[in-house]
């Protein structure tokens, strides 16, 4: 039986919206900026409750990042909101110089990450964002797995000093982690223990990985599922402990393989404990229009893909 039950699917962006509102109530230094996507980012309640602390920047993301950096000078804690693509690639140099290099306490909050954005297609599907952000010194990169965890992560980054990239998505998605579970930045979560293969997943893919583990059990393979909700800094200790036990690994992410979680883990294993590894990720392709579930299938990010990858990693270990 699944240890994790879906308490009712909700979008992770709404978890962000609730977390932001709660953080804003707790700390009046928290301010928010949005580039004409207040509703999409679920920042509207914050904007209504704290109109003086909310800044509509218009469709001008570069300016938004600069203003956010400036607001920290004066002790404010700015949360910027737009889609993952426009939160990173579009404004990379602004983030690099004015936020990361300058070590400013800006929280870059990015919705509609990955292919599950759906019908808008490749122009809006951020698949390179985590890679771009994790290359920047000083940057913390967080990718929570469901509504509850995104809410908790939002509250956690509000109390954390330093630049943070927080990634979440658009679709309604199973909500399965406990309400009000503490979010510990930099701590990987062992979701289910196992002995034969480690599955490291992030974001929406954690749910798929848990289902894959169920299917693997029926094949006689005991999978350990670990939620890497903090991409940077990576919890190397937990990750290495797991593969020392299982001896092989699968990564699963709704992101480009180049620059993604899988590449990060492979680098960690190569330096510390080389093992067979398979990667579930988008492989050097742009996304396209479609329904989220269709796109997950098309780009081989679905539950059967993870199962297949785990079987392969497991067999490579034996071979």
């Amino acid at each position, binding site marked *: 039986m699944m240890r994790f039950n879906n308490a009712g699917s909700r979008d992770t962006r709404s978890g962000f919206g609730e977390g932001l509102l709660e953080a804003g109530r707790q700390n009046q230094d928290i*301010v928010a900026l949005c580039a004409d996507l207040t509703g999409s980012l679920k920042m509207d309640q914050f904007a209504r409750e704290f109109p*003086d*602390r909310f*800044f509509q*920047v*218009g469709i*001008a993301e*570069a*300016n*938004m*990042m*600069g*203003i*956010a*950096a*400036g*607001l*920290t*000078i*004066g*002790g*404010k804690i*700015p949360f910027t909101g737009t889609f993952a693509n426009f939160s990173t690639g579009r404004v990379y*140099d*602004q983030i*690099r*110089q*004015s936020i990361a*290099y*300058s*070590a*400013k306490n800006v929280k870059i909050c990015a919705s509609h990450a990955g292919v599950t954005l759906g019908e808008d297609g490749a122009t809006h599907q951020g698949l390179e964002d985590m890679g771009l952000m994790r290359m920047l010194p000083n940057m913390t990169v967080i990718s929570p797995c469901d509504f509850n965890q995104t809410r908790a992560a939002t509250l956690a980054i509000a109390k954390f000093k330093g630049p943070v990239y927080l990634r979440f998505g658009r679709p309604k998605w199973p909500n399965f982690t406990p309400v009000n579970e503490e979010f510990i930045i930099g701590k990987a979560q062992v979701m289910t223990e196992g002995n034969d293969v480690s599955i490291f997943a992030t974001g929406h893919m954690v749910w798929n990985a848990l289902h894959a583990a169920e299917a693997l059990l029926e094949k006689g393979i005991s999978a350990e599922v670990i939620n890497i909700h903090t991409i940077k800094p990576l919890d190397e200790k937990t990750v290495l402990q797991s593969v020392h036990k299982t001896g092989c690994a699968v990564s699963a992410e709704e992101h480009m393989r180049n620059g993604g979680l899988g590449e990060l883990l492979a680098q960690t294993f190569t330096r510390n404990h080389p093992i067979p590894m398979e990667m579930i990720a988008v492989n050097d392709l742009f996304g396209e229009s479609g329904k989220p579930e269709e796109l997950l299938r098309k780009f081989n990010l679905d539950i059967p893909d993870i199962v297949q990858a785990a079987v392969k990693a497991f067999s490579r270990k034996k071979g």
Partner: protein
Amino acid sequence: MHTIKDLENIATQVRRDILRMVHGASSGHVGGPMGCADFLTALYFDTMQPDPAAFTIDGKGEDLFFLSNGHLSAGWYSVLARYGYFKTSELATFRKLGSRLQGHPATAEGLPGIRISSGSLGQGLSVAIGAALAKKLNQDEHLVYCLLGDGELEEGQNWEALMFAAGHKVDNLIATIDYNGKQIEGPVDEVMPLGDLEAKIASFGWKVLNMMGNDMNDVTATLKKAQWFTGQGQPVMLLAHTHMGSGVDFMTDNHEWHGVPPNDDQLARALGQLEETLGDY
């Protein structure tokens, strides 16, 4: 209280510092900072008069300055040192390994007076707007100043920032454009014509004032006038009509001096035109 003559003497020494720093590093920019030496001197020694000992990154309770055209670093560092943020002897480390005086301003090394990194162009006005908004939220009556280059206006982010500041009535902000008409590759109007800059910025909703940027009387007077226009629902823009390389005849108005260090002979000739008013570092 500094007289105009005092301020002119400081600016002359700042020009000497710029030339010696860039010569000492065999790299850096002299033309822009020499053109802005009068403005930067007036801003610190007359207009803002901040307390260097009380410096914090947050800058609560004091006027703030942001240098968007970060390649004017030598000029800013000289003014900061001459004003008392750090010892003038540190100017000799400019652009050298281990220095707090990075090629372009940075916060990572903890140099007092610097609150954000700049150098990649087009970002400073947005930052200044953010700092000005924070001052409003903190009910801090102090002002925020920002210096931009005219060539820098080719970066689109500036125009996003110009729109925002007027639209959100950021009226505790005084920005200045170093309107010397020169950039690395030549006259700005040949690289990318700015057109009627004053009309453009005014049409965005800013109060625009013109300033003879190398006339200390006019610089101090225009900065006072700009302060008077703050708090009236509009951001204020000063168009500083300056001369790149001002102070040394063979450098003045010559875009070739944007980013080239003087050789030994050129340094000697240049320093011969600038009296050592406060003592070299």
